[in-house]
């Protein structure tokens, strides 16, 4: 499909595509899928940490956690709005999420077992998210790029808060230290999987990556981002006093990077297929909230319609 010189020229010049610009349908569909998945991840991502709001161990932590989960809802809103500029509305995207037709990040199918998980999610999961998302601030599609700028700013704040939770735990009681280490043990490998399958694998060869790179949607390969992440996190772990659960992790002078052990991609594919600890729970939770709220949304629409009719009447 060819849509004329403007699109290609803009892409070639690394300029932004805006909603009114002509664009190839594949580009549009790729973006819808990616932005929707990203928005869904924010909304589903409210659950694992939301699980700790009522049990946060201090009022200060409770307040920070509520604000963080609220930010995630806000990120979801920005992103659904960005997707809507591509001609699809939020209700339709939510239906696709609820019906399992669109995905969200598999990381949210892991359970949050202790308070320290709120720290580990902030530090590792938000850390990995930022690594993935910063390049998207220069994404070729304008509304997406601008949404990502706001998101990234808040995410780095969240990442610092997660670090701070773990920092306090590691300087706390023995039980608190064990809790922090345990959380890092459980979240480290799933965080590495957040960058997606290796560039050398079957999945990457499907062509999505190459096309997304050509379109200026994707800027770095999965493995490159993963390596950057590892290189960033190892010194932070040392600072925290947390031992990352990888005996193969060590500095490679020659490469100028940290080497790390093999990732269990079987687990990745299993969770992606729906057989993770929380897949069923996350979607059931979302569907229940959505269904419980149906009468409220209907009422709001009915009221708006009535009000519009009244205004029209009084204007006539």
């Amino acid at each position, binding site marked *: 499909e060819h849509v004329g010189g403007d699109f290609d020229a803009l892409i070639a010049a690394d300029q932004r595509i805006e909603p009114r610009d002509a664009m190839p349908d594949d580009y549009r569909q790729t973006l819808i899928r990616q932005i929707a998945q990203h928005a869904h991840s924010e909304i589903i991502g409210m659950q694992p940490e939301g699980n700790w*709001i009522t049990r946060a*161990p201090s*009022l200060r932590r409770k307040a920070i956690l509520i604000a963080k989960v609220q930010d995630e809802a*806000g990120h979801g*809103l920005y992103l659904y709005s960005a997707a809507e500029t591509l001609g699809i509305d939020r209700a339709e995207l939510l239906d696709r999420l609820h019906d399992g037709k669109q995905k969200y990040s598999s990381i949210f199918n892991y359970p949050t077992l202790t*308070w320290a998980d709120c720290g580990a999610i902030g530090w590792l999961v938000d850390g990995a998210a930022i690594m993935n998302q910063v390049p998207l601030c220069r994404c070729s599609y304008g509304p997406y790029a601008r949404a990502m700028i706001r998101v990234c700013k808040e995410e780095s704040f969240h990442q610092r808060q997660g670090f701070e939770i773990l920092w306090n735990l590691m300087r706390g009681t023995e039980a608190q230290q064990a809790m922090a280490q345990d959380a890092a043990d459980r979240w480290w490998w799933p965080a590495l999987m957040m960058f997606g399958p290796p560039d050398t694998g079957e999945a990457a060869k499907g062509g999505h990556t190459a096309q997304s790179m050509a379109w200026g949607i994707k800027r770095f390969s999965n493995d490159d981002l993963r390596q950057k992440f590892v290189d960033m996190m190892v010194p932070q772990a040392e600072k925290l006093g947390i031992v990352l659960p990888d005996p193969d992790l060590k500095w490679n002078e020659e490469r100028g990077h940290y080497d790390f052990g093999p990732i269990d991609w079987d687990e990745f594919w299993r969770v992606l297929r729906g057989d993770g600890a929380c897949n069923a729970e996350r979607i059931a939770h979302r569907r229940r*909230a959505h269904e419980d709220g149906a*009468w*409220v949304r209907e*009422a709001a629409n009915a009221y708006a319609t009535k009000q519009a009719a009244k205004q029209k009447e009084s204007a006539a």
Partner: protein
Amino acid sequence: MTEVAAQASPAAYVLGLADDAMVYAQRLAEWMSNAPQIEEDMALGNIALDLLGQARALYPHVGTLDGTGRSEDDFAMVRDERDWRNVHLVEQERGDFGQEMARLLWFATYQRELYAALLASSDPVLAGVAGKALKEVRYHLDHAALWVVRLGDGTEESHTRMQAALDSVLPYLPELFFDDEASVAAAESGIGVLPSSLHEAVTTHVAAVCQEATLDLHAPTWRARGGRAGIHSKPMGYLLAEMQHIARSHPGATW
């Protein structure tokens, strides 16, 4: 136990205000990821944050007033049920969205009148908290009123549900306007305000919203009692169990 609650002290009065805000913040925060739309996850989270902020501003002041020097977490995380002074309204389990809006409409209207009166408190800390909170609760009130009107005057189903929701909170309202010992003493000393003095303004406002919402305000067949004396309803113990479990599991830890 109940050493504060039993006294007609300024501390007991302020603790009642703080506990109302704290417990309602806890209930409202339960909505996050459970609301009818994402905007409401955010709005209810926002209101929860405001109320939590009020509680956090008031608790250390209670610790000063009663001379115990207790921190916000001493009050929230390691205090037994019998020592909580909040009204039953705020401790009731999360119901449907209509019930929440009914509860919020009454509570925010009550808080608006309360904080407006407390601007003149002889206690500068309390007056300061009131000044900040007043701006917040106006938004809470507008938000609740908007939804009560939409739901009351929305669909047939929403009208029925919203009317039932309004009815369900009625038994819990008299407690908001009950002049317990601590309130009477606080009002006399100029620190606080007599709860009964807020009744008319609150009811008038809520009635106006209900009228716009095509809803009726009925009289309750029974009324809750005892929150200000630490006598709570069934959900309170479970709320505290959840809220305090981790903190109680790690005595003396900081977070």
